């Protein structure tokens, strides 16, 4: 797997890790994937007898790949062993089609700016047919300390 070092730096673990791979990353953009395993816990209740991935989880996946993974890359020279925390500050996402259990999605994020520790990106999620599942802007503040 490429760019494993980015994934190792992520502050998430199961059952709230929504990144499988980072396929490419640069100062300006990132591309990553995630497969929504069929046994994820929330499918039991969203919805009753009709499992569909919740929009908040799609947003979380877009933020983990598009914002947090990119943020780790952008800060790679500044942080050594310190874990990066990112506080989500704003999301504005439109949804276009549902994601069912077992689907693999691709997340593409393009940096708008990264200044004064605020990272703002345009983020898109695509399905296996390259149809747009969701798109919008997400921003967060990077804080190199525990969020308490």
């Amino acid at each position, binding site marked *: 797997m490429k760019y494993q070092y980015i994934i190792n730096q992520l502050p998430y673990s199961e059952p709230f890790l929504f990144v499988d791979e980072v396929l490419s990353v640069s100062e300006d953009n990132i591309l990553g994937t995630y497969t929504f395993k069929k046994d994820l816990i929330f499918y039991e209740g969203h919805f009753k007898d009709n499992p569909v991935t919740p929009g908040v989880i799609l947003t979380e996946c877009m933020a983990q790949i598009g914002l947090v993974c990119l943020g780790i890359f952008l800060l790679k020279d500044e942080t050594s062993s310190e874990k990066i925390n990112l506080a989500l*500050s704003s999301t504005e996402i439109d949804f276009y089609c549902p994601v069912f259990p077992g689907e693999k999605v691709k997340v593409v994020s393009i940096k708008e700016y990264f200044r*004064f520790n605020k990272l703002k990106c345009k983020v898109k999620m695509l399905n296996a047919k390259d149809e747009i599942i969701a798109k919008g802007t997400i921003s*967060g*503040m990077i804080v190199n300390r525990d969020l308490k």
Partner: protein
Amino acid sequence: MTSEEIYSKLEPIIKTYLPEDVSAKEVNRKSDLTRELNINSAHLVDIVLDIEDVFNIEFKNEDMERLRNVNDAISLIQQKTSA
């Protein structure tokens, strides 16, 4: 630029990012941006980026640390526009 001229351009920028529970009437030159006007750190960055565009100047990290209230913003802008 006089501080009045700066304030007249700065005030609408700040008002754009006020949370709903803070009235625009509460904005004055002594207002503490985060403590009194309740602007969060992410929107404080937005305000600075808008100031950079409107006044055609650039803020540095250490300027951010000096930015507490509206008067701080005015003096930073004054310094940078006259430099």
